[in-house]
Every structure is written in structure tokens, then in C-alpha cells.
């Protein structure tokens, strides 16, 4: 039996199927790497919240950007609010190495502003259009999602879920390193 090619062919087939299933259990089926990473950031234009002026991608050229999509109804966005505000103060106000921009999606200006005040956000906050122009342009699956844009507008990375201090520090090191834009 062991010398039969049919035996080994069947065994090989079973091994391939079992291997594929085993691999399938190790990966999160909901996580798909954004095709935007490595390419130019899609253009957008959003209205400013709480008296801030409108903002477009062109306004951000020349500085790396942490572009965060959030919403007042998003529970996970509460977890990262303080971290983003901290990053704004540390890396934007003090070190001036990047900008932190937040775009609220599927939200109302009143609720978004109330959320921002509750969590002490002082960085730029905009509001996506009701038709979700910016959300769809950036291929969002939900909120929070955060993109790292290089100074030349290239999308360097994307994070699904709340940002972390360590993750942001890694991004800062990346844009400040020898390979930075």
C-alpha cells in the first residue's frame, strides 16, 4: 500500500485540505490589509467641527499625518481619545513632527463636538459628508480606523481598532527614521 501512488495522492490531498483549514483558523477573516497602503492617499474634503475651517488632503501636504476616523457613538473611540490627544500635544505641538487629524463619520456636528469636549480633544476635527465621501475613499470597515500618511501624501500604514501609545511611537520612529519621506 505504501508503494502505491494512489495512496500517496489521496494522503497528499487530505494533507493539503487539512493544512488549508489549519491555516484558516490562524488568521482573522475580518482583517484585510488595505490596498491603499503604499499608494497615494485618496483626496478628501471635510467640514471643520466647532468653528474649525474645512480641511482637504492638499492642506496636509508637507507634514506626516495621523489620520483618525472616529464617531461619537463608537465605544472603542473612547479608549483611544486620550492617546490621540496626548500624541497631538507631544508630537504635533511640542516636537512638530506630525499632525493629528480626526474625521468623525456617520455623526452629527453636535454629538461629535460634545464627544470631543468630553474627552478633551483639541486637535483638528472634521466631519465627513452624510454620503460618506471620505469614509468610502479610505475603504473603512468601521471606526476607529487610523492611517499614517507620509509628508508626500503616501499611505504608510493603517490600523483597525483603537491606536496605542506604542503603536503611535512606532509610527513616529518610522517617519523620523532614515527611510522617512
Amino acid at each position, binding site marked *: 500500500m505504501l508503494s502505491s501512488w494512489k495512496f500517496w495522492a489521496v494522503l497528499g490531498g487530505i494533507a493539503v485540505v487539512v493544512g488549508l483549514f489549519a491555516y484558516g483558523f490562524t488568521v482573522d477573516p475580518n482583517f484585510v490589509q*488595505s*490596498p491603499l497602503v503604499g499608494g497615494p492617499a485618496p483626496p478628501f474634503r471635510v467640514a471643520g467641527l466647532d468653528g474649525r475651517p474645512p480641511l482637504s488632503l492638499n492642506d496636509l501636504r508637507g507634514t506626516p499625518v495621523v489620520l483618525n476616523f472616529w464617531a461619537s457613538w463608537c465605544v472603542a473611540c473612547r479608549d483611544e481619545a486620550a492617546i490621540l490627544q496626548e500624541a497631538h500635544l507631544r508630537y504635533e505641538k511640542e516636537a512638530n513632527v506630525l499632525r493629528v487629524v480626526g474625521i468623525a463619520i456617520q455623526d452629527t456636528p453636535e454629538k461629535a463636538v460634545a464627544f470631543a469636549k468630553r474627552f478633551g480633544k483639541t486637535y483638528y476635527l472634521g466631519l465627513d459628508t452624510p454620503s460618506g465621501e471620505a469614509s468610502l475613499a479610505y475603504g473603512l470597515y*468601521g471606526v476607529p480606523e487610523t492611517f499614517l500618511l507620509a509628508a508626500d501624501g503616501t499611505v504608510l500604514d493603517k490600523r483597525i481598532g483603537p491606536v496605542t501609545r506604542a503603536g503611535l511611537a512606532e509610527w513616529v520612529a518610522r517617519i523620523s527614521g532614515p527611510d522617512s519621506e
Partner: protein
Amino acid sequence: MRLAMLGTMAVLAAACAWALSGEELERRVLEISSELRCPTCQAISVKDSEAAFSRQIRGKVRAMLAEGKTEEQIKDFFVSRYGEWILRAPKKRGVGLILWFLPGGAILFVGGLVGLKLYRNARSREALEAGAAEDTISEADRSRIERDLRRFEEG
């Protein structure tokens, strides 16, 4: 008077044409939306979902169709943002072609193997029957078999 009537008729005709294109537009929106995956749902198309993202995607499809974009261009836009994941069926080009033809190819391959096996079995059965029909035992062998059988029966 005649001019006014003609003008009214022209306006009515244009309105009918617009209404028709509106229905056709909605049909196309639903058709394309049924082939796009809802980003926030589990295994539901954008057409069948009432999630905010799905409503926005339907709106984007409608706007792109109104701009004159083709189905291919609209799908390409969403693939460029979400990746091939957004398509409920893989594209019929490139690597997607493998996924389209693999199941059919596998069925044909297995069917071919089964057919070949059945054909070979039938051939060997025919050969056996043909062999049985032909008496290939010589007279000398036959008499020796009969002699041995008699000896066996006599003990």
C-alpha cells in the same frame, strides 16, 4: 397655442424618459450592490444590508452610475479601496479565474478518473468473458484433468 402644446408634450416626454432612467438607475444600483460585500456585516451584500456603510456605498454606486461610470469602473473603485474582499464573487480575470474554474476543473478531473476506471473495468470484464468463451485447454490437458479428478474421487 400649437407651440405651447408641442412644448408641453416635449416636457411630458422628457419627464417620462427621466422616470424610466430613474427606474433603470435603481435597478442597476441594486444589481451592482448585490455583488458588493457589506463592510460591517457577516456575509451580506450591500444590497441586502441597511447598515450605514451599505447605504453610503449604494449612494456612491448611484452617483457613479449617474456620472456615466461603467459597472467595471465602479467595482474597480471599491476594489482599490477595500481590496478584492469587497467583491462577493472573484473577478473573472487574473488569479480570480483560477477560483472560477477550479471547482469545475476538479469535477471534470474526478469524473474523468471515475470514467476511466469504469471503462477499464468494463474492458477487463469483456476480456474475461471472451477468454471463457474460447476454450484454450488442449486435449492432452483436458484428459489429464479428468484423470486426476477421477483419481481424487476414487480416493
